[in-house]
């Protein structure tokens, strides 16, 4: 996967959420404006869950701890900004409800999308604990002993290690 696409996708989602959040908080929205903002916001929020398997796949394939942390931090930022957007979209929902005398259809989708974002937030938070768990450094004596064993030749080359771990 490209090293640049995922951060840009995350940044795009955050920017969209912030822009639509600002617009939905504007006073004096008319019904057609409210409907447009609600539809756009809901679509933006519903796209966020598609980032989660990308992030999990990237980490699962093997990556360093700091990279995994950064990927999860970006994802959590996207989730939080879109949860905030979901909150501000209550205003266009109210405008439409007042105008039409019934709950707009998108309102139910908004609730479901919020719930999915909260689930992803919880899963990503659990994974962050795995990534950020404290290291258990070996003692200096253990490292000295390991160095001594290494010096005496108790070591495998990369190819020998690969075969030992994975077989032929």
């Amino acid at each position, binding site marked *: 996967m490209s090293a640049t696409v995922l951060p840009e996708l995350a940044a795009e989602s955050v920017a969209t959420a912030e822009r639509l959040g600002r617009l939905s908080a504007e006073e004096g929205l008319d019904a057609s404006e409210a409907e447009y903002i609600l539809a756009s916001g809901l679509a933006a929020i519903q796209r966020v869950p598609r980032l989660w398997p990308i992030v*999990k796949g990237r980490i699962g394939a*093997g990556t360093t701890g700091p990279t995994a942390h950064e990927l999860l931090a970006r994802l959590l930022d996207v989730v939080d900004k879109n949860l905030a957007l979901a909150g501000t979209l209550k205003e266009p929902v109210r405008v439409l409800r007042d105008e039409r005398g019934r709950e707009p259809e998108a309102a139910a989708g908004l609730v479901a999308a919020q719930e999915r974002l909260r689930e992803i937030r919880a899963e990503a938070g659990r994974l962050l*604990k795995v990534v950020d768990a404290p290291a258990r450094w070996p003692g200096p004596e253990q*490292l000295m002993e390991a160095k001594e064993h290494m010096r005496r030749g108790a*070591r495998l080359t990369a190819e020998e*290690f690969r075969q*030992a*771990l994975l077989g032929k």
Partner: protein
Amino acid sequence: MTYHVEVLSDVSHYLRGLEGLTREGRLAMHGFMDALRDYGDEARDACPRRTPDSSVFHLRWTFDAGPAIRSLDLYVDDSEAAAGFLQVLYADLVPLPGS
């Protein structure tokens, strides 16, 4: 710089003995070898050391072991780095939180 990565036999024994990893999980775990080989200079610069003059740095490798995504800590000696060698002295599969 591309490094030759060597692994202490005790580390190899420990990693081979880890239970519950799928074949794909072992492959993903093995990726730390490629990372050290190809990005050893970045790791030497960025990874933490107990003291600034220590020859041992700590690399955390996160991967999907099969049943779950896990973190593996590797402690790598770079005292032979000038000759192109990095040596993995110690490994520790970090317990899952709450286990």
